[in-house]
């Protein structure tokens, strides 16, 4: 029961500080789940993140698997509610208020000011994932090839991500 409360608290907080979206909140999630509460090792955290990459919809639905690992089905349900509900409530009310401030020039100050912070957080999230997943030249090559292909043309990322997974498997079993 205590664990469910901790899960609810941690993921509700993460939901509210996710300025810049899922990637932006990834370092804080790792900090809480792996280092603060020691709920799982960083490798397991990375593997769960990867599961989210191959599921449809928002990748951050993978938080449910974190809840499941820790407290079964109830954990998954609690984490899903905690991670999505607070943010939905904020979005709902801010959206209704936002139109009232359409003339306010502070509105664009908020947008412009938070934009670089959000980018800095996304970079941090990318870096956190790189630290967890790139430990040799093969990993680096997979990341570089994915980056290169996506910068060059439009390809469904799922194809590249599956190819990345298979390439690393081939590298491991050779």
């Amino acid at each position: 029961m205590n664990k469910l409360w901790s899960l609810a608290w941690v993921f509700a907080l993460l939901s509210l500080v996710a300025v810049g979206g899922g990637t932006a909140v990834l370092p804080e999630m790792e900090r809480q789940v792996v280092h603060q509460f020691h709920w799982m090792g960083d490798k397991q955290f990375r593997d769960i993140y990867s599961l989210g990459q191959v599921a449809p919809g928002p990748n951050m639905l993978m938080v449910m698997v974190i809840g499941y690992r820790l407290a079964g089905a109830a954990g998954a349900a609690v984490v899903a509610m905690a991670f999505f509900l607070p943010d939905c409530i904020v979005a709902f009310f801010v959206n209704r208020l936002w139109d009232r401030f359409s003339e306010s020039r502070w509105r664009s100050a908020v947008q412009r000011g938070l934009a670089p912070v959000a980018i800095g957080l996304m970079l941090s999230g990318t870096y956190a994932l790189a630290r967890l997943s790139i430990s040799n030249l093969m990993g680096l090559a997979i990341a570089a090839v994915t980056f290169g292909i996506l910068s060059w043309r439009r390809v469904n990322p799922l194809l590249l991500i599956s190819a990345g997974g298979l390439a690393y498997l081939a590298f491991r079993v050779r």
Partner: protein
Amino acid sequence: MDSAKPLLSTPNERAAHPVQLRAIFKTFFTAGAISFGGGVVAYLREYVVYEHKWLDDEGFLDALELSETLPGLNSVNMSVIIGDRLRGVIGAASAVAGLLLPGMVVIMTLGVLWSSQRHNPYLRAVLVGVAASAVGLLTTVTLQLGHRQFTRLADLLFIGATFVAVGILKISLVIVLLTLGPLAIWYYRPAAHPSESAHHFRHLRERFHSHRAHWRH
């Protein structure tokens, strides 16, 4: 910027022909089910703007601007905003439920299977490769999303400070947001940069019209 624009021409018309909750749920469910590898927002735009014409493109991009400033996932925020504009609270709830349900079923199935096989070295190798590939994907998305910020010195400083604080020093995100956030907003306070005020966030529209917008998260 007229984000308050009604979706249908008049409030009366909207009241006379409300969008069915089932239609909202089904539309967001489809977007949530086929958006493998991210790009949920691009699918939403396809359905909401072009197929059902529930919103015009301007209205959609206004909602996207707000979604990007709000905390939380863009696609979820978009669902709340669009659902609310169509049918109020229950519309928003239907949209979010539809968006998340397919992914929830798939991720839980994967999660249960993974839990029983999580020490399997082959599975772990695949997941490491997936994560490494995701690093490439996230790099592309971040550079593309921030292409305007990366060319401005002030923004680069905020990006750098945020990255060092969170990525390197691992300072609590709450503390970083409560210090750097207000600082950055203050830097862009009204009247501080009057000449640029007309260009706010136009890049967002440009970006969305480019083909790369497909796989944004």
